[in-house]
Structure formats: C-alpha cells, structure tokens
C-alpha cells in the first residue's frame, strides 16, 4: 500500500508561540486515519500546512509524493477539504456556494450533489447568513463529497451536526473507504473516529504522542471486566494484572491488563463464574490516559 500522506517531524511557530513541535503521521491508500487531540493541540495547523495555506518551518510534508507547498496546485486537484470553522458568504445561497466550490475544484458530480443535499436535508435556496452552524457544515461537506478526489481531509466535520446527520456522514465516509479513497479525519469526537478509523494519531501540544491501529493502541490500556462468581470474589484482588478492584457481595468490577488476561480469567474460573461482562477499552480511555499526565 502506497502512502498518500507523509508528514515527518513537522514544525511550525507563529511568532514566539510554537504550534507544532514534532508531528509525524502518514495516511496510506484506502485508509481512514483518525487525527485526534483537544482544541489547540495543532490539528488544524497541521492540516493547513498540508493544504499549503501555511508554510512549514521545518520537517517534511508530502501528499501523493509531492511537496505540499511547492506543488499545492497539483495536489489540490485530487483532494477535498472541509474546514473546522466553516465561514460562508452570507449573501450567497447554500446551493450557489456548493456549485462554486465544485466548479473551482473541478470534476463535480451534479447528481451526487443533489443526492447529498437530499440526504443531509439541506435547504439550498436559503442565504448562507441564515444557516446554523450545522447547516454551514453541511454545505462544506456536500461540496467536498460531491467532487471526485483521492484524499479527503476533514477537519472536525461533524461539529454542529445532529446525531442523525452524523450517521449520514459516517455512512458517506464508509462509502469513500469502500471506493478505495483515503481520509484524514480530525476530530475530538472519539466514538466517531473509533467507528471509522483504521488507524489513529493522537496529538497533544504540538506533538504526536501515540499512533497506530486501534488494536495496537488497546494494548496500552486495560479492559474493564465485571463479573459475579460463586466463591469469594475478593480473592481476585491480589491477582497480577488486576487494577482498581471494587467488590460488592459476590460481584466485582476491575480493569485488567491485556497481557495478563488469560491468567486473570483462569483464576476467576476457579471461583465459578456466574456472569461476566468485558468492556473493551475505548478511545476515551486512551485519551484520558494521555491527558492525565
């Protein structure tokens, strides 16, 4: 699989403020990469460098093997972008703005546009100034999804969308993936990234602190186990790999290290398991762990 986006040791300062210390990430062909971090972590700055809107101070950034600053035009032919803050011209209607973006990008699909307008339930005849944040977001999304691109860069694309529209969005991203397109999806809505992303990159204070597939990252965290046994449940508290143990009667809730899971369950079986629930680690857990320290 070839790499569509390569970023290595990216650096960027605004005056005295360093926005990016060291950011490296990659997006392979046909892959959805989640790019997560809190506000101000450097997600949008990284994306704007990728788009050639900002000039990097150091490091390497390539899309389709081309330098993002020097060859931005060639690159832009094949990418779609949805900004995090969608600002539109108040006196133009949503329909006019979508058409304009499609035209300036090139290769738009009129039928797809109309289909997406219906799917996202946008009223394209209203002036943009009367749109809510969610509706502005829809305009940007429809424009980006109606053109044929190889890479989709989506910066917090669902902020302001209601859950129904979020589901529509996720469905559309899945379609892109099936069509072999690559997607860089920045977000702080973890469930969304979890559902869509093949790999995640976690950024914090201008540095990438973690990256890999969700499975790989889950090794770093613990599964939450809730069980009820016949014997004395308190016996499990001392087993290696068990943390945060809490027991009421013969029920217990604890978190378990991935590498000791076999041993822990063997011990539990000896006590006679009546009921067991295992909750896999969510990105939330991953995330919280990084922000705790």
């Amino acid at each position, binding site marked *: 699989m070839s790499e569509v986006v390569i970023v290595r040791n990216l650096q960027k300062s*605004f*005056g005295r403020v360093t*926005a990016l210390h060291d950011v490296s990430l990659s997006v392979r062909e046909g892959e959805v990469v989640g790019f997560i971090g809190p506000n101000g972590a450097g997600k*949008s*700055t990284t994306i*704007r460098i990728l*788009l*050639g*809107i*900002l*000039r990097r101070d150091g490091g390497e950034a390539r899309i389709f093997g081309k330098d993002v600053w020097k060859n931005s*035009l060639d690159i*832009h*032919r094949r*990418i*779609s*972008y*949805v*900004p995090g*803050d*969608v*600002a*539109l*011209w108040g*006196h*133009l*209607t949503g*329909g*006019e*703005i979508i*058409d*304009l*973006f499609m*035209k*300036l*990008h*090139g290769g738009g699909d009129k039928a797809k546009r109309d289909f997406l307008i219906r799917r996202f339930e946008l009223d*394209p*005849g*209203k*002036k943009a*100034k*009367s749109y809510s944040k969610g509706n502005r977001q829809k305009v*940007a999304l429809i*424009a*980006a999804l109606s053109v044929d691109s190889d890479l989709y*860069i989506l910066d917090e694309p669902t902020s302001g969308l209601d859950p129904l529209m979020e589901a529509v969005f996720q469905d559309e991203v899945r379609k892109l993936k099936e069509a072999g397109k690559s997607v860089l999806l920045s977000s702080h809505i973890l469930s969304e990234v979890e559902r869509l992303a093949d790999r995640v990159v976690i950024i914090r204070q201008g540095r990438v602190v973690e990256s890999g597939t969700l499975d790989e990252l889950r090794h770093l965290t613990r599964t939450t186990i809730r069980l009820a046994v016949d014997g004395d449940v308190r016996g499990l508290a001392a087993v290696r790999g068990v943390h945060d143990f809490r027991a009421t009667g013969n029920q217990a809730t604890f978190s378990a290290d991935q590498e000791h899971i076999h041993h822990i369950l063997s011990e539990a079986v000896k006590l006679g398991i009546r009921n067991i629930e295992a909750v896999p680690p969510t990105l939330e857990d991953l995330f919280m762990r990084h922000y705790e320290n």
Partner: protein
Amino acid sequence: MRHNFARWDMLFVQFLKRDWKKILVWVLGVGLFSAGFVPAFEEIGKGQGFRGLYETMQNPAMIAIVGPTPADRAEDYTLGAMYAHEMLLFCGLLAMILSALHVIGHTRREEELGLMDLVRSFQVGRQANSLAVMAETVLINVLLAFVIGGILAGYGESSLSAEGSLLFGASIGMAGIMGAATALVMAQIMPASSAATGASLGIVGALFLVRAGTDISKESLSMLNPLGWTYLTYPFTENRWGPLALAALFTIAAVAAAFALEGRRDLGAGYLPERQGRVTARKTLLSVHGLFLRLNKGVILAWTIAFLVIGASYGSIYGDMQTFLESNDIMRQMFTASGVSIEASFTGIILLVTTSLVAILPVAVVNRLFSEEVRLRLSQLLATRVTRARLYWTNVLMAVLAGLAGTAAAAVGLGATAVAAMGDGASMDIGDFLAAGFNLFPSVLFFAALAALALGWSPRLGKAVYLYLAYSFALNYFDGLVDFPEWVSKTAVQSWIPRMPVEPSDGAVFATITVISAALMVLGYFGYRRRDMAEGA
C-alpha cells in the same frame, strides 16, 4: 394589553445601560454635524456670498438635492435661511437612517441572534421590547433636538433665532422618530432583519427621490410626503410648526400599526415569506472573478453612483460662476491676474478632490481580500485549484477597473452637468473634463498599489492606506489656503501630477507613477505568494 408590555421599563433601562456610549457618540456626532457648520457658512457668506449662493440654489439640480427655500429675494437669504436650506434635509435623513438601523438592531436583529428567546422566557411582555426600543429612540432624538437647538441658539447670530433653532433641532429629531416608526413597521412585515433594514432604507430613499421631483415641479405636493414634514418647516424664515404635528400623527399611527402587527406574528418571522434564493448558481458566479465581482458589486456600484452624483452636484454650479465672480471683486482680480478662467481653475481643484475620493474604492476592493481571509472564507477556496496568484491578481485588477469606473463617473458627472449648466458659451467640453480626470488616474492607481503591497506583506496595514489617503486629501484640499513648503506638499502623491486643465499634462510623470504603482503591485504579489494565510495565527 398591559400584560403585553409588562416590564418594558426594565428593558428600557437595560437598553440605556447597554447603549449609552453609542447614544453619546450619536447625539454629539449628529448634533455637531447638524449645528457645527455655521462658522463655515458665515465664511462663505461674506460680502456678496449669500447673493451668489442664492442664485446658485435656484438651479433645479440644487433644489433636487437640498430642497427649496422660502426666501423669494436674495436679500431674504440670510445665514439662517441658508443654513436651514442646505443642511436640514440631509441632517434629517441622517437622523432617520440612524434611528431606523437602531430600531431594527434591537428588534429583528436580536431575534435572529437568539437573544430575544432568552428575554421572553422571563416575565416580560410580548411587546415590551418594541415599546422599550421605541421609547429609547424617541428619547435619543429628543436629546438630539435639544442639543442641535442649543448649539444653534448659542451662536448668538441675529438670523439664528431661538425659535428657529429649536424648530431646526425638533425637525431633525422628528425625522429620526419617523425613521424609527417606519423601521418598527418594517420589522414586523419583513422576513428577516436584513430585509427589514433594506425596506426601511428603501422607503427613505424613495421618499427622498419623490420629494426631489415634487420640490421642482410643485412644492405643495411635497407636503404630502412624510419626509416633507421635516425640512419644509422652514426654520429661521417661516418657522412652521404644523408639519411636525403631522409627523407626530404619522408616528403614532405607524407605531400603533406596528404593535397590532407584532401581536399576531411569531418570534423571528415576518408577514412576508422569506424569499427562496437560487438553488443552483448562475454560470457567472462560477469562477474566482465571478465570485469577487459578486462580493464587490454592491460597493462598486454604490460608490460609482455616488461619484456621479458628487460630480453632478459640483457641475451644476458652473452656470453661476460668472455671476459669482461679478459679485466678488477680490476673486475677479485673482482670476484676471492669473489669466485662467474660473471654470478651468475650479475644474482642476474639484477633480483633485473627487479623485482623492475615488481612490477609496480600489483600496476598499483590495482590502476586501484580506477581510475574506480573516473571516476564514478563503480556507475552502485555497484547497481547490485556485492559486494565490489568481486570487491576488483578480482582486487587484478588479480594484484598478473599479478605480477607472470611479474616475470616469466623477469626470462625466462633473463634465456633463457643467457643460449643460454653462449653456452655449461653454468654454470646455466633456472631453476636457475626462482628460483632466484621467490625468489624475495614476494617483488612484498608486493608492491601490499601496493597498496591494500591504496585502502581500503586512495585510493589517491595509487600513493605514486610508490614513495616507486622508492625509493626502487634506493636504491637497488646504494647499490653496495654507502655503505648505514644497517638500510637505510633495508627500501627497497627487501633488506630483500637474492640474489639468490649468496646467498642461506631463506624460513623464503620468508614466512614472503608473510604472511605480505596477511595480508595487508585483512586489505585493511576491509577498502574498509566500506568506501564511492569516487564519492560522
């Protein structure tokens, strides 16, 4: 009924607290503007000045702009008569427009911003807000009336009587109150705040145009026009208070209508349905220049029309210049000595003034690109195949074209009316005016180039170009009155260009400034190509 207005007094106090700074600037600003020009008019009127102006003001073109005067003879055209004649209509319009904008800002605009939902959730009557904002606007205009009346009476001029001063102020205040009432009605009918603003200003504009027609043809018809109830009070001459009573009745009726309408509408909605816009874009929009033309269309059109009108209003006085010259010995000697006709000399000065104004337009067009950038509207564009070169040059070129249109409009407006006013004995034709206007075009280009340079290298300085423009304008404007040293005069770019038609044109200067401007634009491009877009910071 009481229930509908519950706690309006609390909202009223709240408005005053929120707005007191705005009110201060408004009352003092409009007050000084309306009453502060008396010394300037005194200056103009020295000697036979009033007589000359009286003749000038009989010109239908002038009546269309400022309205009629009740003075039948030049002797009756005192300082007070002239001041009311030339200032009252415009100051009334200003008060009207400000009040209308204020009312819509506090009604429909706040509904759209969602502020009103919160207010309504408390024990506040359905219509308390409208009553509060109306009361606030009435209070502001009453204050304004007294400030204007006070200043005018304070000059101690014999023709500026106390009664006239108060009537002058009250007429302006009443104009404001009528503007507020009109806006309150429109705020109920129109589907959105922008439409309500547009409709209110449209009504004021239409009334102005209608009165221009009736003032010229049959003055009594202007008394059927609500706008007529302000400036036809004739302060300092006839002191008619009657029209103000009509205006008060009009206001009461309009406010009552507005309250009745408001009682039956939903929050955030008007009676007229929201007009459905275009679902797909026209072909003309679908390009970078199409987009920017659309964005700048309003400002270019408005300014071009303004330049035409400004030019025309200056042009209309060409016919009376000889009369004026005959009445003023010093002036006559000046012109005889210099061997230049008064018309030619006037043309040179006026075109310098209008061209300085014309330069505002291209600077505004260039600066627009940066304000688009700061408002994040370019981010999605920049991710398409649109290059920075395309953005920059589209915009700069559009600015240059707008400058050309503005220069032409000012010169044609001035020239066409001047040639018509001078009649058969015209010493200049329209070509002379165009040549003199375009002779100054390099200075317009230069200001556009400065703005372009700022856009490329330090876009926040784009606004500073206006400062330099204002400085140059002031320097040129006062150059005739104050004798600046040569090097000071030369800091204004216009001073390098000879003043046609009095002086012959200078091709070398013309070419040099044009080339320098073009070079600055190219230099600006190099900056624009490599700098960060401001949104990232």
